[in-house]
């Protein structure tokens, strides 16, 4: 059909024969894309008298917003915490590979490392792929301001505290905060309050994790601006009925009214027992954010690989700190996590998909362009079948992977 577009001459794509995730429901609607963004077809029809230039037949598949992984340490042999000669290339390789899992945005995560690593890796900014503030050039710094007792797989010798009063320590360690989207820290460390407040004010998401904080310390951190919990249950005090610790944030009444505390869940069937997953989900369903916490070895065959400054070992679906039984991260993929989460929690398809798209976008404050299929949002899409297998992935309306 001829086109007549008074607003833009860019080609318009119409995805037909699909079910789209909108307003928390899967709806039988077409999806329209122009110039990398979701287009309002009604405006197009009445204002511009415009039409689609091409149609993509989705054959009944589900279209969901592309998944967002806010905790991923590497994959396919790439370790984000290693200062290689080609940091940018490494991030780009992982970015390309995880498209197969439906992930269109992620925060490269750096585990506790010596300052020179942060200085080298952090200052290498990777190209911004969209106008949205977070694509893959903003990272998640997990440590080193974490608790010794809950270091997990992090190297003890590089843990730090806020000796110089807070922000000074941070700048000294990280070098720059320009490319940082999220920082995981332990709020019980002295002088953390100022740090939490300052980071939050700068628009950096503060996450609580690798910590022995009690509930009051955690609540205070939230009131100072913390909004995320790094891999709930792991690397924190277990729930206790007289002091639920960080886990208690899920049902805390000290969280300010207008704010939500989100929490990361590694739903790989290994890091968290399904019953615990269900307890968390039922207590606070809207805060659940699926993360992979995937490590270098994700996507690689079994064997030994490096993670940060340590060596880890793959055995089947498990990844341990070499020579121990301490889990060092997961090798699950995001689509596996979504499937497992749905099956273990019994939630709806919509809820499972939102845990990997809408919720992380809400956490990072980027829902204007990511995590939804609302008009104007970036057209980062994942096409899935009813069993939540990824069939195709799109970034800015362009197909970047197809099964």
């Amino acid at each position, binding site marked *: 059909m001829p086109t007549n577009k008074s607003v833009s001459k860019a080609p318009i794509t119409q995805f037909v024969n699909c079910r789209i995730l909108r307003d928390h429901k899967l709806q039988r609607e077409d999806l329209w894309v122009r110039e990398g963004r979701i287009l309002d*077809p*009604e405006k197009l*029809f*009445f204002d511009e*008298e415009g*039409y689609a230039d091409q149609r993509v037949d989705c054959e009944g598949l589900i279209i969901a917003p592309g998944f967002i992984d806010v905790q991923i340490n590497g994959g396919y042999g790439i370790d984000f915490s290693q200062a290689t000669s080609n940091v940018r290339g490494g991030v780009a390789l992982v970015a390309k590979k995880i498209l197969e899992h439906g992930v269109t945005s992620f925060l490269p995560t750096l585990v506790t490392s010596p300052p020179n690593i942060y200085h080298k890796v952090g200052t290498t900014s990777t190209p911004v792929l969209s106008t949205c503030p977070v694509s893959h050039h903003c990272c998640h710094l997990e440590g080193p301001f974490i608790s010794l007792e809950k270091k997990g797989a992090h190297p003890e010798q590089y843990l730090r505290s806020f000796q110089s009063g807070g922000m000074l320590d941070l700048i000294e360690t990280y070098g720059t905060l320009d490319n940082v989207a999220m920082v995981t820290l332990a709020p019980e460390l002295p002088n953390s309050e100022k740090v939490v407040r300052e980071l939050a004010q700068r628009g950096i998401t503060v996450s609580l994790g690798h910590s022995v904080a009690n509930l009051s310390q955690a609540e205070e951190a939230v009131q100072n601006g913390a909004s995320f919990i790094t891999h709930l249950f792991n690397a924190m005090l277990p729930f206790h009925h007289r002091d639920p610790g960080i886990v208690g944030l899920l049902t805390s009444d000290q969280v300010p009214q207008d704010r939500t505390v989100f929490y990361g869940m590694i739903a790989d069937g290994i890091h968290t027992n399904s019953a615990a997953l269900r307890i968390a989900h039922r207590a606070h369903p809207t805060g659940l954010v699926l993360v992979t916490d995937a490590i270098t070895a994700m996507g690689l065959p079994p064997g030994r690989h490096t993670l940060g400054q340590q060596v880890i070992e793959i055995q089947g679906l498990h990844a341990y700190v070499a020579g121990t039984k301490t889990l060092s991260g997961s090798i699950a993929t995001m689509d596996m996590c979504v499937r497992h989460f749905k099956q273990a929690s019994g939630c709806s398809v919509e809820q499972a998909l939102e845990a990997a798209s809408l919720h992380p976008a809400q956490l990072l404050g980027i829902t204007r362009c990511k995590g939804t299929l609302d008009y104007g949002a970036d057209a980062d899409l994942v096409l899935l079948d009813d069993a939540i297998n990824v069939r195709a992935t799109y970034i800015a309306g362009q197909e970047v992977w197809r099964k």
Partner: protein
Amino acid sequence: MKLIILNDYDQVGEWAAKYIRNKILRFNPGPDRFFILGLPTGGTPLGCYKKLIEFYKKGEISFKYVKTFNMDEYVGIPRDHPESYHSFMWNNLFKHIDIKSENTHILDGNAANLVEECDSFEEEIKAAGGIDLFVGGIGPDGHIAFNEPGSSLLSRTRVKTLAQDTILANARFFDGDLSKVPTMALTVGVATAMDAREVMILITGVHKAFALYKAIEEGVNHMWTVSAFQQHPQTVFVCDEDATLELRVKTVKYFQGMMHVHNKLVDPLPPN
């Protein structure tokens, strides 16, 4: 008039859609001769629209050479408000079929000069060659479009203030908040609809029964503006049994007896 009496709402929608389909196919529109349809909004025509979309999807009909003129639109609500008639037509018909935007005409309730908007709407109808088939519904107060009781039977497209009954009835679409309901609308006039070469009115439900009675069994009266169509040479009223509850048994039996003849109008056309 032809009074088509069917069992229920779904049958009314299907019969009406088939009638429209056959009319368009027989007309055989093309790039130089468009079929001009007048269209309503509301609950009554929804079933008919669903069926038309079905026929389009099955390949039985195309709207490529069809032009549409809607009867009315609210004044003062944004065009993309979920209750605007633009939204209604987009969501319930236009987005599912192959009609071109430039061939659809809906009054603009946000025009800078409402009177000019109404006048130019009349001009557009004239320029298109007049309406071939005007489809409409009927209000419980017997109104056609927004020609509320007391509207002149010779009226043309104009701005109308809505009757209190209408505003109350519409409140349910505006969160039950009367202050949010539009109080004015642009509407085609009674005479505008009468100018169409053929008229089809859909009436379903018990709450429309009295209006139907007033429209066809009593006199032509500006208090029941649909009654004006008694003076149109080609009118079809399509209704369900509930809507006939206020009619005389004699009227109903007469037209029910004609159904085997009238049903021929909606038989699938022989392939050309």
